């Protein structure tokens, strides 16, 4: 077959190119621009090379924030994924209660981030918050504004409350797609409940579960609004996650150079982790095909 060569076809790609340029490439290049220059008042810029990168890499501040960030993402994944799967397994399969559960579980997903933050900020307050007040009256020493452990518990509980539904809904969709014959065959083969989960439900859920993990990881790795509203990164720097730290640096201190270098490294980390996820997922698919 003869292939027609028509260079004009490139014009068809142009709209996408322009769109991507404006939405991603140009803003990113601005950041790159800042990261290699030092700025003074009056819009004076001086070439700084990789100085900012070097400085950031030798600074404990970014490393500490990264450590906190990884801990946060790790903990919420360790809670939300098993919990979401557990919830999905116990949801009714059909009928009124199935729809009811779906609606109730979707509710937290619809609430805007800063509203979620505000809800938990108030909820946890010792003076007027239902949770804080109750714990206080029960004699449990809880104060998320002063105790860093309590602050962590609060933001993790908030994230679990907000996002477990997403994992549960995805897992539920995965479960629903399993034909009845699998369960019937398992009964005939006298498989235990655990074996049914391990050999039927889990493998069939793996695809959607990987997507859930990826989504939850990315989202939690970039989280800003909710913890910021609740703790503002405190007490001290206890809950200063990467985004919060970055904003503090860029807007609070107006250190544009280091902040830009920080941004780029942050972006590269996310890119690298996404790539790992992508590779793992496509490998799973290949094995599945």
């Amino acid at each position, binding site marked *: 077959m003869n292939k027609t060569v028509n260079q004009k076809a490139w014009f068809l790609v142009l709209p996408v190119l322009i769109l991507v340029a404006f939405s991603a490439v140009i803003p990113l290049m601005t950041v790159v621009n800042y990261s290699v220059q030092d700025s003074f008042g009056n819009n004076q810029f001086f070439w700084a090379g990789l100085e900012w990168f070097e400085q950031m890499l030798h600074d404990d501040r970014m490393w500490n924030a990264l450590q906190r960030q990884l801990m946060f993402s790790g903990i919420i994944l360790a809670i939300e994924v098993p919990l979401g799967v557990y919830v999905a397994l116990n949801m009714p399969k059909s009928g009124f209660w199935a729809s009811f559960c779906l609606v109730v579980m979707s509710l937290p997903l619809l609430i805007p981030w800063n509203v979620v933050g505000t809800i938990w900020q108030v909820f946890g307050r010792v003076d007027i918050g239902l949770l804080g007040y109750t714990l206080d009256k029960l004699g449990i020493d809880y104060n998320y504004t002063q105790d860093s452990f309590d602050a962590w518990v609060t933001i993790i509980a908030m994230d679990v409350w907000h996002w477990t539904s997403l994992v549960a809904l995805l897992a539920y969709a995965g479960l629903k797609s399993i*034909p009845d*014959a*699998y369960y*019937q*065959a398992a*009964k*005939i*083969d*006298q*498989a*235990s409940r655990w*074996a049914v989960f391990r*050999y*039927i439900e889990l*493998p*069939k859920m793996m695809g959607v579960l990987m997507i859930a993990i990826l989504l939850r990881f990315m989202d939690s790795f970039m989280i800003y609004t909710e913890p910021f509203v609740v703790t503002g990164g405190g007490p001290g720097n206890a809950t200063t996650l990467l985004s919060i730290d970055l904003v503090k640096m860029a807007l609070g201190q107006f250190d544009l150079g280091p902040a830009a270098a920080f941004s780029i490294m942050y972006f590269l980390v996310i890119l690298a982790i996404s790539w790992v996820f992508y590779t793992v997922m496509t490998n799973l698919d290949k*094995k*599945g*095909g």
Partner: protein
Amino acid sequence: MARITLDNLAHSYLPNPKSEDDFALKELNHDWEDGAAYALLGSSGCGKSTLLNIISGLLNPSQGRILFDGQDMTQATTAERNIAQVFQFPVVYDTMTVRDNLAFPLRNRGEDPAYVAARVQEIAAMIGMEATLDHKARGLTADAKQKISLGRGMVRKDVNALLFDEPLTVIDPHMKWELRTQLKKLHHEFGHTMIYVTHDQTEALTFADKVVVMYDGRVVQIGTPEELFERPAHTFVGYFIGSPGMNVIPAQIEGRRAIVHGTEMDLADGYGPVNGKTAIGIRPEFARLSSDTGLPVKVRRVEDVGRHKLVRAELFGQEINIVAGEDDRIGPDMTRVWFDPAHVNVYADDWRVAPQGRAA
């Protein structure tokens, strides 16, 4: 191994069935003899799978009892019934190897590992999958997966019955024949009671000692392939078995004579008064074209199907089929059809009427 008795069994998927139409499986009494091979034949949606699932315990019947060797098992779990069942679409445990798949039912029963290994080898040889034993089950073709399902069904020796729910649907024709042969061999060797659901008459007739024909939630006939062919108890059996099916022609029955649209013909036996919607049924194999005897027909079409010719003809405005020999001459003078009286059955309201002085 056990004799399985269905006692007044019926099932409806509705919570409060009112009329008989609400029942997917209408009231049924039947003994499945120990060690026999049955085929459950019928068109889609006639209740075959429902019946199978009730026997294996996946479904609780709305009424009636199931007895294994006289012992009531209606409320027993699938595990207690110890039955193996193979489904229409392949069910394999994706993350396991073929070997683990085959071993799964045995391991779940806590069998000795050495026995499991030996038994898996045996079954793998039977389904021709020895070479792929250590492959993961995912990624295999549909028919390989179905072979694994079959293998898992056959791996337990002590089962009370082996149930197959259209297991060869996804398998290619050559393998189909081979697997069916394997199943028959297995049946001869171990003498399990086997119930094989299918809508393919060839499959049913070649597999089973006895064929159970179901129609609209009801068992209409149970018999050997020969009985089903010679004396279909219901016009549905006549249509469904045979290729093409039986011709059913409305007729009045008077003693030893049938009157078809005012034309008389003789019957082999006498009948008492027959009421209702009466008809005669004649298989195309027992109808002959003739130039002088029989009922008047117009030949519409002749199809040569190789071993014989298939004649489509019109009898009083109704299309009938006639099988003619490969060398028979079919000329313009063939204006009559003759029905061999010995093979004419009489039906009233679709059910066969036994001639007087003879049992059905």
